[in-house]
């Protein structure tokens, strides 16, 4: 009886992965915008790398006959004093800026997250790892006592000009934030009853950390990470603006450096599109990731996840729910709302 009957619960579970994701996004228009923007930005970046001629009509240094031209069909964001196409430069900068944001925030997350996990979980005084976590925290304090932008600038001066050294410099100043964040979250979670209950069930310490603690701090950390990509971009652009990260005009343009160049040469005072385009690109990217971060917060938390599914399912016409990847074998729609049978909901209402 057990194995042979149909298993609606499991089918619903398979359905829930994408279906739930989509329903939450739909229930929350701003996250949907953020999600769509991030997808567009990512796809555009890939196209620029793989097939530049599709989106980038001119080379980064290619001079055209139109000088200081305003936005037009030929030059959507206008041209500068030597006839260089601003649109092409902004597009060419997109993959680089995106990669920089991901690389810095990603390596900071990995380094800081790992150290934060250790410092938060194995902080018993008198043990080897306890000693390690004290050392890690003191190093973190040293880094955090500097304003990170100033420290990154100083490091860039030491490490040299260019994209690589700048990325390294910002990463070095960036990981301590993740140590603090992750450690704080671990400390908050590790004393909760369910962690002790897992321990009582015979789960080993390492597995408790990886399965029970890490899973429960993932949500704030991923949200912070997504928001942080925007912050990193702004910081990198600032460093680019000051003129130590990237060279513009040059073969690989970068938004911050573009802003700096046109402002410092004075062209921006007369031809505002020269700075509006790269500035707008920075704004749009940061904005997209911020919105996505807010949306992820809802998706990752099982509580809000279910709540969203319910509220959206109630407003949904029954026909539309069958568009999910798996057909609902459980019969008529009124029995099931967002994967939870009505009977179960009535028996155990969720506030």
């Amino acid at each position, binding site marked *: 009886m*057990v*194995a042979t009957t149909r*298993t*609606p*619960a*499991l089918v*619903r*579970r398979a359905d829930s992965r994408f279906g739930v994701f989509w329903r939450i996004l739909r229930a929350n228009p701003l996250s949907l915008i953020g999600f769509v923007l991030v997808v567009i930005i990512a796809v555009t970046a890939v196209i620029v790398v793989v097939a530049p001629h599709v989106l980038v009509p001119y080379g980064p240094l290619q001079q055209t006959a139109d000088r200081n031209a305003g936005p037009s069909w030929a030059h959507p964001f206008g041209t500068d004093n030597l006839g260089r196409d601003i649109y092409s430069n902004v597009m060419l900068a997109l993959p680089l800026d995106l990669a920089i944001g991901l690389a810095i925030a990603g390596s900071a997350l990995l380094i800081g997250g790992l150290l934060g996990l250790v410092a938060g979980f194995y902080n018993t005084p008198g043990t080897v790892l306890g000693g390690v976590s004290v050392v890690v925290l003191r190093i973190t304090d040293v880094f955090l006592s500097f304003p990170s932008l100033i420290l990154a600038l100083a490091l860039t001066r030491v490490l040299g000009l260019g994209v690589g050294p700048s990325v390294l410099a910002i990463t070095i100043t960036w990981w301590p934030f993740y140590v603090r964040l992750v450690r704080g979250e671990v400390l908050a979670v590790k004393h*909760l*009853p*369910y962690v*002790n*209950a*897992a*321990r*009582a*069930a*015979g*789960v*080993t*310490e390492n597995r408790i950390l990886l*399965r*029970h603690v890490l*899973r*429960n701090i993932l949500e704030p950390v991923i949200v912070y990470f997504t928001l942080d990509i925007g912050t990193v971009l702004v910081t990198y652009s600032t460093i680019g603006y000051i003129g130590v990260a990237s060279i513009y005009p040059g073969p690989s343009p970068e938004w911050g450096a573009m802003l700096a160049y046109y402002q410092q040469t004075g062209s921006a005072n007369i031809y505002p599109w020269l700075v509006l385009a790269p500035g707008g690109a920075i704004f749009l990217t940061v904005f997209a990731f911020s919105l996505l971060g807010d949306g992820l917060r809802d998706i990752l938390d*099982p*509580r809000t996840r*279910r709540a969203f599914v319910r509220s959206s399912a109630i407003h949904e016409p029954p026909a539309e729910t069958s568009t999910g990847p798996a057909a609902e074998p459980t019969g008529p729609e009124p029995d099931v709302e967002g*994967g*939870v*049978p009505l*009977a*179960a909901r009535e*028996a*155990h209402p*969720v506030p």
Partner: protein
Amino acid sequence: MTDPLLEVENLEITYTVGAGTFRAVSDVSLRIYPRQVIGIVGETGCGKSTLAQAIPRLLPEPPATIGSGRIVFRGTDLVRVSKRQMPMVRGTGIAMIFQEPLNSLNPAYRVFDQLAESIRIRHFREMGWVKSFQGGNEAPFDYSKPAAPATATVGGALTRSIVPDGALEEAARDRLRTRSEYRDEVLRYLRLVRINDPETILNLYPHELSGGMRQRIMIAMALSEKPSLLIADEPTSALDVTIQAQVLTLMKELIDEVDAAILFISHDLGVIAETADEVGVMYAGRIVEYGPVAEIFRSPRHPYTKALLRAAPSRYKDEGPLSTIPGSVPNLSRPPPGCRFHPRCVLARDVCRGEPPPLAPVEAGADPNARGVHRSACYFAAEVPNLP
């Protein structure tokens, strides 16, 4: 005569908080035999939860310290087991149900995943894929001393299972199980704890369940590891009365099915009276009276027990205002000398301020080490029945 499953001897536990030390548990001795249900009752702060958590070594150390004493579980002194090996004892050896059912399930996982983890832990240990305390015929630990327990000493408690293993489990015994095999087994345990519609509950998150349901899931998780000792630390006190009754009924039903000894901790005399075979009354970190549950409730032989019973409301007669025990629970950083109850005791005399009274048999000449002997830590136990 079987050997005890768990033998706690002269256990001392102190908490170091700031400059002060609190003697939460002093000189507690306790024996639990297979298939026995032992209750520990006492006021808030008497050390009963500390005792419960100290047995599977779940107390955070520091601030807690096990000063002296032994916790011998199936022949091994758990006080001397290393932190690295302790997880192997927990779950399959000693399982625990906590007082906060609302927070004792991981909010990020569905019921299925939580139960499957317990089942996986037991399965892996049974197969010897990880070193196990309950490792079948092999000696479970590499201790040099004391000698590893012979599995024979605990008799049937090792081999008999709580629920008859399904054919699937037998088939999947010596290999990794598939998800659907885990699912069938999870469903069996959900049915065991009388959960309706387990196929649905399986896929729910803890926050979607009521308190009583969560507590049943906790019980199912503990049972799925087939422990030989189950410690239930106030399993019903966070639940409202109707749910409490359901969970208690369930526990009572399971006690017959489960082949495990149970240590039942509660501040509720009624709960203890309903579930336990023998009961220990704790006051200020000591066991002051111990004996078969009926005897303790019918004829208490310690003034504290007597006062405690008098303070409990009776539903049979209207006694006017409930009686209280004068004074308050002593500060455990500076416990009173001698018998800790003497400042509040009507029988107190000079001798009570000297040596603390031993937990001695009430009947003269009874063997103090025999099973279920009524014992009282009072010099004047004989006078207690004459108290109002």
